[in-house]
């Protein structure tokens, strides 16, 4: 690896060190603030019915940000597929890991619990840490485990047959409608589609459950699409 010129190294180091030093000296950070987040802590559970205050924030108070984040995610998945689907890609099948009884057995044993864990994280996102994003990613990487065991193309074919790729943006549309329709009807609160219920039980938290479920499915599909695109069209130097 050739080195950058000396002047670049010196200038860069000087600038970066000054930047970090300036930040550290002036941030004026002295530990946690006492009343940090007090408004959310006091009212969060009462307002939204969800025990997990972080879920309450990003799926209720600040749902708009989460909407943008979902759009970013969708754009990323679509972009990856758009660019890589047209590459020549490896002509031969994705190379399989040599047939190994250990891997197949392990995958057989592990995949159901992983999927279950993902579903649990999604469904209980309003009661304990987790939520749609975490649960969806767990389930998506469970699929990756399947791909390692069975071969990526086998999994992709099954996936395609279930028409899951198109399902993804339909879910996006559903989420958008969930957000949009209350606004159209003139009511700003857009998170009350389900009852608030008793704090701490599964049936609580308003529509946070719906959102978590939809996001979970979406992230699950999206993660697999991205992983498979990279595996299939991995290109060469």
């Amino acid at each position: 690896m050739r080195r950058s010129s000396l002047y670049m190294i010196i200038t860069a180091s000087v600038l970066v060190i000054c930047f970090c030093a300036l930040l550290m000296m002036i941030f004026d950070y002295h530990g946690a603030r006492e009343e940090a987040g007090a408004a959310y802590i006091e009212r969060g559970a009462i307002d939204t019915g969800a025990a997990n205050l972080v879920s309450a924030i990003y799926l209720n108070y600040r749902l708009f940000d989460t909407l943008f984040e979902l759009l970013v995610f969708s754009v990323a998945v679509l972009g990856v597929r758009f660019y890589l689907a047209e590459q020549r890609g490896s002509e031969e099948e994705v190379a399989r890991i040599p047939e190994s009884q250990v891997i197949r057995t392990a995958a057989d044993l592990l995949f159901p619990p992983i999927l279950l864990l993902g579903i649990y994280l999604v469904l209980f996102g309003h009661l304990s840490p987790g939520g749609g994003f975490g649960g969806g990613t767990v389930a998506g990487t469970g699929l990756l485990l399947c791909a390692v065991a069975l071969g990526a193309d086998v999994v992709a074919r099954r996936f395609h047959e279930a028409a899951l790729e198109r399902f993804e943006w339909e879910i996006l549309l559903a989420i958008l409608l969930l957000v949009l329709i209350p606004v159209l009807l003139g009511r700003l609160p857009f998170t009350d589609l389900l009852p608030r219920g008793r704090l701490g039980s599964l049936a609580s938290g308003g529509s946070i459950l719906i959102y978590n479920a939809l996001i979970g499915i979406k992230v699950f599909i999206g993660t697999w699409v991205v992983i498979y695109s990279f595996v299939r069209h991995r290109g060469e130097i």
Partner: protein
Amino acid sequence: MMVALLPLVHFGFAALSLAWGRVTRELILLSLVFDAVLVGLLSAGLSQGKPLVIVLGGWEKGIGIELAADRFSLGLTILVLLLGGAVVAYLWHERLRPYFFMLLHLLLGSVYTLVFARDLFNIYVTLELLTLVSFLLVGYERKPYQIWASLKYLLLASLGLGIYLLGVAIIYYHTGTLNLGLVAARLAAEQGTPWVLLASSLLVTGVAVKSGIFIFSLWLPAAHSSATPAVSALLSGLVIKMGVVVLFRLTSAFSLSLPLLVLGALTGLLGVIYAIFTYDLKRMLAFHTLSQIGYITLGIGIGSEIGIAGSLEYIVGHGLFKGLLFLAAGVAVQTAGEGDIPGLIARRAKIPVSARVALLVGTLGIIGVPPLAGFCGKSLLSAGVQSPVIQTVLILISLGTVASFAKLIPLFRIERGPSSTWPVKLAFVILGLPIVLFLPLARLLVPAAQLSLSLHVLPFVKSLLAVGGGFLLYRLLSRRPFHLPQRIFRLEEAILVILSGFFLIYLLSVLG
């Protein structure tokens, strides 16, 4: 409520465009009509004079996300409508995949959100979406130079927004809120403390990367000149303005006048200097965007009502003529087969007449010939300026603008030529007409009292003098081609320049 509806509708249309791939063009037309209706309702709602504020979800400001529409944002939505309509017309006959239209809808939706945004983190997320969408649009045709330009853009923008997020962290830690209005209130007591200056410098640096300020937006010439003409028109005319709009919103919470004035002056001057000595048409237009952003930033830095009104007029005006110029340049380069200005001049017989007329109108606008769009904006800006230094800078930028566009003159001889298709002509008219008949538009944007300030004899004379002076300058300079440093546009050097720029802003904040 309309305020929230505008972006959401576009996101809905984005998803729909993917679903019904066959009617994407009709869908986007429909969405623009819808927008026009909503904007009309919005302006009716604003006529009482107070800004319309909603907090999404019905919570209070400190807890939910706030969107607010004021007169400034109304002016911007008019620009979005016009530019959107023109781009749709321009692209009517092109074969584009539904994916492209989805990206367009997302772009429009994010722009609408930024026009109304008042929440620091909401701005971050929207800017990231806008970055990704622009990045994908620039690289749509997959040519290598486009891919490299957009990759540079993504890396630099992502770095910039990371710096922005650090600033948000500092602000949140000390004030406990992300809402700009509340931050302004809580900071009122503490202006001048080191962390306020540091945080504001970080925020400004981050946004400046996306705003087209010269030191920070070194990705711009490559990215805007490599993209397809419609995309360049949207990026230069609309997307880059959103960065400046965010800077304007930030000024309500932090005192940023000195940094903005200096940055505006630097951008304006450096942009025209590079533009004068660039002979590739699209690249020159991109450098021009940088320098006109300098104008707008100066207006915002001045901070007075007249300055802000001038900036708004110039944002709309520049969006119109830069959009028109890019679209016309696209047609010209396509038909002549050549991107260099001398080459275009040699082959001008191949360029459609409408494109050449459009280039002429756009050039007249950007030069500031009265009573077109550019003149109104520039005269209002100069009317709002007290200090002679800034006046001189404004005049210098005008001279440079004229000088850099003077090399297009041989293109404007209206001879016979092929004609372009009717949607393209429609696009030119949609943008060109408001440029020429800018005064009625200006009356919508700016209160009448301020408008009349700009319509005296003195500004007329000044602008004509500027035009004349610019021609002389061009004559002088055209004899000696000058090679300006191009190294700063490389990736690594650009990052170093951004870091130095941050220190510059911090220093200016401390001094100011």
